[in-house]
């Protein structure tokens, strides 16, 4: 069974807008990671945030982590059509297993 849940399940925005995706998890974590999966391709790691970090940036990506609420958010600024993909959060718990959520489908309209 999968531990985390992403919200919303699907998101459609116009190119240039920002996209915000949320993720919740159920148990304590060591770190949380976000991955992207394009249609027909494998997953690509985007960013990792450790349990003692609250915010992290990488290019147009900004991820936050609130361990008190067991939630994380991924913000993509100035979205592009190439950002169209499925986005997964994955957390690593005490058992060191990486557990993925069901994913969020992002569509960026040109």
């Amino acid at each position, binding site marked *: 069974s*999968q531990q985390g849940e992403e919200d919303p399940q699907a998101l459609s925005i116009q190119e240039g807008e920002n996209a915000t995706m949320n993720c919740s998890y159920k148990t304590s974590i*060591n*770190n949380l*990671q976000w*991955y992207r999966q394009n249609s*027909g*391709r*494998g*997953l*690509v*790691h985007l960013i*990792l945030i450790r349990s003692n970090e609250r915010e992290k940036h990488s290019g147009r990506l900004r991820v936050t982590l609130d361990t008190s609420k067991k939630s994380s958010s991924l913000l993509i600024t100035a979205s592009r059509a190439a950002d169209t993909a499925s986005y*997964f959060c*994955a957390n*690593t718990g005490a058992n*060191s*297993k*990486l*557990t*993925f*959520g*069901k*994913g969020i489908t992002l569509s960026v309209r040109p």
Partner: protein
Amino acid sequence: EAGVVQSPRYKIIEKKQPVAFWCNPISGHNTLYWYLQNLGQGPELLIRYENEEAVDDSQLPKDRFSAERLKGVDSTLKIQPAELGDSAVYLCASSLEGFSANEQFFGPGTRLTVL
């Protein structure tokens, strides 16, 4: 740098037939994973190897699934016999040692269709 290589990319078989998937991880990556991904879902771990040792196979259905990683490099995942419910994408990933702290690099996957 070459990424994780998987073959075949697609496989169609009839139920009760055997099938095997092959994975070549990124050079130098000690840890190798096999995941199963159903349509509309995230990947679920089947087995994790540290070098040639399977350190987590708790989610591997051992009655029909088997895996090996001889010499701690390439790995094969086998299903025998395949069932209709095994239709899914099988992903291989690798990472440097230090499992929980490192990103995983995924291959393109093998899409299995069982008829």
